[in-house]
């Protein structure tokens, strides 16, 4: 447990001292959401209706562009070799790194979402629903992406392959995230059903993502 916390602490410390890396996703998210009203036109009703989808797609893409850095720095300088020999089981090493990465990239996205939602003329209730679903959905996206990040850690320009590998796996999270948000705005479905499935997907990714990322490291050895 001490080792687990030490790893999260180290990653956060490096991210804060280096700057830059963590902000990229957030700025990308901001840009995507701000240009959307210009592209769609000044139809407030339409914007409010597609707002949750815009926020979710932007959050997914912003998560994707930051993912290649998840293990790359540790792979480049040899830290990954030592982490694999650590006292901590490899899936927990993956989990600790994912948590630190999410705190620096996913969490700011979820927290910024309600403010950006205002630009899209979204209702207060929709803002709340998007924030809650993103808080549950972004860690799931990062966990799913961890496997791809582990497979492409050794590649210099693995970003694109990574995106192609993990994007299809992220689609269920996107579907249930958006349907939960739409349900919160009224509709035949209650908010709880799709939201429970979203939480389930997150828990599923927690188990499978950490284990398959560890296996991916071993597979890319030979």
């Amino acid at each position, binding site marked *: 447990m*001490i*080792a687990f916390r*030490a*790893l999260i*602490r*180290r990653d956060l*410390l*490096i991210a804060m*001292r*280096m700057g830059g890396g963590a902000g990229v996703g957030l700025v990308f998210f901001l840009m995507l959401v701000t240009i959307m009203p210009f592209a769609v036109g000044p139809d407030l009703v339409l914007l409010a209706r597609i707002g949750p989808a815009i926020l979710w797609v932007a959050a997914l893409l912003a998560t994707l562009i930051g993912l290649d850095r998840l293990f790359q720095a540790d792979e*480049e*300088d*040899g*830290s990954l*070799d*030592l*982490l*694999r*020999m*650590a*006292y*901590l089981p490899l899936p927990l090493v993956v989990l600790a790194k994912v948590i630190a990465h999410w705190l620096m990239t996913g969490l700011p996205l979820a927290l910024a979402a309600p403010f950006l939602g205002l630009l899209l003329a979204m209702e207060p209730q929709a803002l709340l629903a998007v924030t809650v679903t993103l808080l549950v959905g972004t860690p799931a996206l990062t966990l799913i992406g961890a496997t791809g990040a582990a497979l492409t850690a050794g590649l210099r320009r693995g970003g694109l392959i990574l995106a192609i590998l993990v994007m299809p796996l992220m689609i269920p999270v996107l579907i249930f995230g958006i349907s939960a948000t739409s349900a919160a705005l009224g509709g035949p479905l209650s908010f709880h059903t799709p939201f429970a499935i979203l939480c389930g997907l997150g828990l599923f990714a927690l188990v499978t993502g950490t284990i398959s990322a560890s296996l991916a490291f*071993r597979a890319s*050895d*030979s």
Partner: protein
Amino acid sequence: MKLSVSGLAVIRSGRSVISHLGFTVNAGEALALTGPNGSGKSTLLRVLAGLLPTSAGTIEWSGGQEDAPLSEEAHYLGHRDALKPSLTPLELLTFWRSLLGRAATDPLTALERVRLGHAAYLPSAYLSAGQRRRLSLARLLVAHRPLWLLDEPTAALDQASETMFGALVADHLTRGGLALIATHAPLPIATRTLSLEGIL
């Protein structure tokens, strides 16, 4: 404690790098691995560290902690220094101490031991190649692991640091440790030698 390897073979991307390799290292013993570039010294160390799979043969480790795999009983010092430019040597050592388990020397004392005490609070980005190496050596001291796998540890070290390195390894051996050291240069300590040339 004893490490015995027999009939070891390693194939990497279809090419046989190590074949029919066998040797034994006992507690308190150091084994120098020599051989030309590409003869499999680094590969052997990575295999023992559990970072590469074997294709045949056995690696037996006896007398260590129960149930601990060899990778948790070994320190690995590779070509890359696992150094984070934005962290200080003290922060790095404190981190590795908690990650590697079985804490030994405290980080500040370890830094003094490798004559880096003055740089403890400086971002590691400012360290020279030799100082980086010494910082990696300090990592071997902060956690207790009986088997040291060192890949050209004396590269970039000056004369005085080489002597210091010899003393570190000698200390480790007198406490019953084991060491495998891949090297091209003569080592500052007495070792048996395993030559990997001719295996190719």
